[in-house]
């Protein structure tokens, strides 16, 4: 049988999956700085999608457009559409608070709440929203910590401050905290860039495991990480989506010259 053309095969690979998020012509600004210039891409459900690119290419900005965190920066603006279940999360009347409940986020530096214990940190999303009885909270906290591969390390010291953990543990605590409100999508903004290699590996394994149940979008400047962890990879440059497709294809047979230059380390 004749091999199908590369482009067609790539499109097919994406169509085979259910869509979690559909970004359509997303532009973003910081005051006058045009940081994203019309990103259109489909993020498949229950897969790991990596967004790579050099510093300042807009990859973090793109991520923050997916849960309406970008608009929190003074002077920031977004245009275009981000569809979830066919509905644009930027439609007037959509509450950003509800969007963020469905699309969780983990940040570059671990940021547990400094005044809260490990338990309180994980439960925070529910307790601060006034939800969850004592008993269900206990269950959710355990489930979330197990899902974040942290339970065995902290089960005997749930009442200790979250900040008493090591950096890698704090980051997994933040993942558990995000998971506790059962999001459909988890955005990870360079989640391992502040961690040592062993902790980095654990976070990567975790991202793969979590993708069995939820959609993961991970921003990274580390191409090996993208290659190890993701099913699909998007390459952003100067606020534009240069290339997007199955990770393996993008790294072995890049279609675009610029992608090839970047992944072979000619710039970035």
């Amino acid at each position, binding site marked *: 049988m004749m091999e199908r053309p590369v482009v067609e095969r790539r499109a097919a690979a994406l169509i085979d999956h259910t869509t979690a998020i559909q970004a359509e012509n997303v532009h973003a600004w910081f005051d006058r700085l045009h940081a994203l210039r019309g990103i259109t891409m489909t993020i498949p459900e229950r897969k790991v999608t990596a967004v790579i690119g050099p510093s300042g290419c807009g990859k973090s900005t793109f991520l923050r457009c997916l*849960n309406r*965190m970008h608009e*929190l920066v*003074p002077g920031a603006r977004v245009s275009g559409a981000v569809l979830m279940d066919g509905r644009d999360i930027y439609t007037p009347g959509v509450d950003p*608070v*509800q*969007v*963020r*409940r469905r699309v*969780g*986020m983990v*940040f570059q*530096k671990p*940021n*547990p*709440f*400094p*005044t809260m214990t490990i338990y309180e940190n994980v439960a*925070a*999303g529910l307790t*601060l*929203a006034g939800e969850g009885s004592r008993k269900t909270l206990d269950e959710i906290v355990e489930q979330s910590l197990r899902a974040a591969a942290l339970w065995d390390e902290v089960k005997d010291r749930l009442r200790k*401050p979250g*900040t008493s953990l090591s950096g890698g543990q704090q980051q997994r605590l*933040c993942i558990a*905290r*995000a998971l506790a*409100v059962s999001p459909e999508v988890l955005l990870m903004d360079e989640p391992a860039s502040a961690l040592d290699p062993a902790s980095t590996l654990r976070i990567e394994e975790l991202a793969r495991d979590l993708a069995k149940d939820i959609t993961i979008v991970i921003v990274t400047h580390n191409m090996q990480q993208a290659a190890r962890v993701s099913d699909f990879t998007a390459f952003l440059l100067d606020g534009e989506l240069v290339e997007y497709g199955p990770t393996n294809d993008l790294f072995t047979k890049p279609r675009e010259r610029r992608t090839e230059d970047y992944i072979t380390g000619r710039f970035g």
Partner: protein
Amino acid sequence: MAVITCGCTLLVLAPLFFVLVFLVGTGWSALNWDFFTRLPGAAGETGGGMTNAIAGTLLLISLAGVVGIPIGVLGGTFLAEYPAARLSQVTRFAADVMNGIPSIVMGLFAYVLIVLPMRHFSALAGGVALGVMLIPTVMRTTEEIVRLVPHSVREASLALGIPQWKTTLRVVIPTAAAGIVTGIMVGLARIAGETAPLLFTAFGNRFWNWNVLRPTAALPLQIFAYAISPFDDWHRQAWAGALTLVSIVLMVNIVARYAASRQVKSR
């Protein structure tokens, strides 16, 4: 150069040192059990104490806290969370101006606002006068401390789907709590020694009073009254009162320092 700066530092410290030494030297001998447990004696009579004035000062500080702390803390939080808002700029300027208003004017303000309509002096009026003085101090320290809360903490909360106002009340303020408490205590220590705003508000009282609508005794007022009296025993007690007042202020400051150092360690 080092000699000059060192000398100036000593010059700054010298008055504090002499005040403290003199205060302890003269006040200590008048301190006794009676001083803390008895009401003031009749004019010219030896003995008696300032128990009601100590209690009155505590009452006034509490009232001032009730008035000044909520406004100061919430106002300061607003200044920190919306630093560029027009209202913030105006408020910040107003707070700085308020800090510079002579304390006797604050007393006058409470006199017109509360004493005149009620037709008599009261602890309430004194408490309000002190409370208004407390607002700018608490507000500006709260602003500074809340601004120190890392942005990442706010983002973590917002990204969990916690609304902005809940993030501020339940995450940002608790994170800044130790620093805010320090600011409050420093503010309280400052107003504890104020005399002028109490002259025609709390007025003073020779007897026990726990009713906020009645005039009350206060340490600074009692010290003033005793110091200008012609009786040696009262002069002695005025010194003892001054020593007590300074000790209260010092203690509050030490507790505040301790709380602040704990805050730094927990970071």
